[in-house]
């Protein structure tokens, strides 16, 4: 903000809003350089710097707005640069491309064709919303990211920001706000899908002198970064939602619990809070309405289990973030023993939209039991990795194939994992499943916070299940025995399977342990921990059987069960595998078939990946077969 005038009434806010909108030309050219985590990793920071220099060299600083915005979503093709208002979308932009963009597009109004997305027909697509990745999305929560500089409250206000807050605190009673949220059918976006309105009501009800509202931004699911995308790119939307919640519930203090691994999100939120305090939109007697509210940011020090509501509240109190039994819910006795309402980042970000556009609008999106949109992090072996926002009820097939573009390297699809370490895998025959809370749950998985990990045929389902258990074994707080020991026992069984030492009754053992954990574990982490294993047994039992009986890994992943060999018929002797082998286990003359010495091989997979896809001479066989081969050749030598 250039000059801060403290707002002391709703009309003060209205005149500020009018002033901001009046001062803006909707046709002004703006350059939005994506600075989401994916694009930053692709050096979008340098692209932004180069734009600053190039615009000033061209004398365009006064005419063009330049912003480092939050995630646009299409991480696969980052860094992404969108030129507004025409939405010209440039992908994979390198610092070297910037001068050309400034010269061609900003100065002369033409497009740089080589930086555009090329459709399947090979023709370039100019407008962002016409690119298939974006075309099928419905960006309600995430859509403003490219139009908002996260450091500019003016940008947010110009897009209608804080009008929902003003509407709520000046024209609605707290009860009416709760009723609206309840009516909208909004369910928690963090995983469980508990109705938000009911939670708010339960927190507002018990008599108490203090109540708290809390944002859960301890996004710990491996492979999910939606909340990060919102908090970094549009922090005000979350803050506004939290404030509305505070007003409705009767809380004067809000907390944002954000993991310290998200420094940019923390900085942007802290900056936003400072500006709000200076403006008088946060603090005592906001806009003279008598509503007082402030927000404190608490950095999480890294514990997956602390995302559980009672654990998170313990962590805010400066204690170990362990869950407690919830005979009494946190809505009655939460932070410091006071009624507390915890919702996920995305849930809060939906609130201003519901207040502004109404519950009926929100209900018009989605399915019978799941309303609104959901942001997913579509990752893994999919062509178009990124953050996607779709209406509830879209099928997995549409998300993975229409938006995601299908499987990387055109391999075969095997499964998609949703719900993170509490969720499960869904096989190909269920790709037409409509994505909502209830359908995913009945398929043995869950919505979770929105991780959607696509797996191709070279994925081992036993290995993936083992991966999640290893994660959970690290992250279990250890307070209750069913979780602490149950996870380790399950892991032990899976380690046996992947090592080729499984016992015939191991599948039954998994079943027994899982039932015990689901029944007895203290919190959601332990109760849902068997899900990744159980769902993969449900749909991929043959892979488990192969590991147990045949000592083979159909996905070709489990090191102890596989060995590498070179097909003499196919090998062209290009020497690529030999060059890449770290232990010199491959030998052979140029243009003659090469050979793998299995005694030296460390199974790093480098040769398999390096072998040209047209040749595919490096193949994986059963380890058991190698030993036989050795024995025979030794026997032969002895004879």
């Amino acid at each position: 903000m250039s000059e801060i005038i403290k707002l002391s009434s709703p009309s003060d806010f209205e005149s500020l809003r009018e002033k901001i909108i009046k001062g803006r030309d909707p046709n002004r050219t703006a350059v939005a350089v994506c600075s989401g985590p994916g694009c930053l990793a692709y050096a979008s920071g340098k692209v932004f710097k180069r734009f600053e220099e190039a615009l000033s060299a061209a004398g365009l600083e006064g005419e063009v707005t330049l912003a480092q915005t939050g995630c646009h979503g299409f991480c696969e093709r980052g860094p992404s640069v969108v030129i507004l208002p025409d939405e010209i979308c440039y992908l994979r932009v390198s610092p070297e491309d910037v001068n050309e963009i400034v010269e061609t597009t900003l100065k002369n109004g033409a497009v740089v064709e080589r930086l555009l997305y090329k459709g399947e027909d090979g023709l370039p697509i100019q407008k962002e919303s016409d690119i298939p990745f974006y075309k099928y999305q419905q960006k309600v929560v995430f859509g403003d990211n490219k139009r908002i500089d996260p450091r500019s409250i003016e940008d947010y206000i110009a897009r209608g920001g804080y009008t929902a807050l003003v509407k709520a605190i000046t024209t609605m009673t707290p009860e009416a706000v709760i009723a609206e949220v309840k009516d909208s059918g909004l369910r928690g976006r963090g995983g469980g899908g508990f109705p938000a309105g009911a939670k708010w009501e339960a927190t507002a009800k018990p008599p108490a002198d203090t109540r708290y509202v809390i944002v859960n931004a301890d996004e710990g699911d491996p492979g999910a970064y939606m909340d990060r995308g919102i908090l970094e790119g549009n922090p005000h939307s979350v803050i506004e939602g939290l404030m509305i919640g505070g007003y409705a519930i009767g809380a004067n203090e809000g907390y944002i619990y954000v993991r310290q691994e998200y420094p940019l999100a923390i900085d942007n939120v802290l900056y936003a809070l400072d500006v709000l305090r200076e403006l008088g939109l946060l603090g005592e007697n906001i806009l003279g309405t008598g509503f007082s509210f402030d927000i404190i940011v608490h950095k999480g020090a890294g514990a997956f289990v602390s995302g559980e509501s009672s654990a998170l509240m313990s962590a805010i109190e400066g204690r170990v973030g362990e869950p407690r039994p919830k005979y009494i819910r946190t809505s009655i006795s939460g932070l410091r023993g006071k009624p507390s309402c915890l919702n996920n980042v995305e849930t809060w970000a939906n609130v201003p939209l519901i207040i502004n556009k109404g519950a009926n609008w929100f209900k018009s999106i989605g399915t019978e039991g799941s309303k609104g949109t959901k942001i997913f992090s579509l990752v893994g072996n999919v062509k178009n990795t990124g953050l996607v926002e779709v209406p509830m009820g879209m099928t997995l097939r549409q998300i993975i194939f229409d938006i995601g573009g299908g499987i990387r390297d055109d391999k075969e699809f095997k499964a998609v994992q949703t719900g993170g370490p509490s969720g499960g895998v869904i096989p190909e025959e269920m790709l037409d499943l409509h994505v909502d809370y209830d359908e995913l749950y009945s398929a043995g998985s869950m919505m979770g916070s929105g991780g959607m990990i696509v797996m191709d045929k070279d994925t081992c389902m036993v290995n993936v299940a083992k991966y999640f258990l290893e994660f959970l074994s690290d992250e279990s707080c250890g307070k209750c025995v069913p979780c602490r020991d149950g996870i380790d026992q399950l892991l032990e069984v899976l380690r046996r399977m992947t090592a080729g030492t499984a016992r015939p009754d191991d599948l039954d053992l998994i079943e027994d342990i899982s039932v015990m954990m689901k029944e007895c574990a203290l919190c959601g982490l332990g109760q849902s921990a068997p899900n990744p294993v159980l769902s993969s047994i449900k749909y991929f039992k043959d892979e488990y059987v192969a590991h147990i009986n045949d000592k083979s890994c159909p996905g070709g992943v489990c090191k102890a069960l596989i060995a590498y060999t070179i097909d003499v018929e196919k090998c062209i002797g290009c020497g690529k595998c030999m060059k890449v082998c770290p232990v010199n286990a491959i030998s052979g003359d140029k243009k003659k078939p090469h050979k793998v010495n299995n005694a030296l091989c460390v199974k790093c997979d480098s040769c398999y990946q390096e072998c040209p896809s047209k040749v595919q001479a490096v193949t994986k066989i059963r380890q058991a077969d190698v030993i036989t081969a050795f024995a025979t050749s030794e026997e032969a030598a002895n004879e």
Partner: protein
Amino acid sequence: MLGRLAAVDKIIEAHGSDREGLIQILLDIQREFRWLPKEILEHVSKRLDVPINYIYNLTTFYAHFSLVPKGRHSMHVCMGTACHVRGAERLLDRTSQVLGIKPGQTSRDEKFSLDTVNCLGACALGPVMIADDEYLSNPTLEDIRRKADSCE
């Protein structure tokens, strides 16, 4: 040592000596020193009037805290699910091989630390690692060696 304690006092003052601020204080100390030395924790224990075992309970519970020195250069390999299905385990093996240390360890000369993280949010680049501030997308053994050699 006195200089270090003065820096710690400054951090404590910024957060207040209430027990609730303890995690935030420890986070700042970790950022300042890259790890949590024993004498500093003892100092915090005195200043906040919190038993030292309470502090150890916290520091061993939360993954971010380290009770051993960290190297001047940090290598973090992402173990998120997206990276996992794209070969994160093999990337970790390669990195471990180049640095000669296992995940969680610091090299004897305190030059390198190798750690795993659960998700870097850069899934499009997976399998991915961060070497200091630089993201490396599926680096080969040679790439990692080159990066390690370029570190002072």
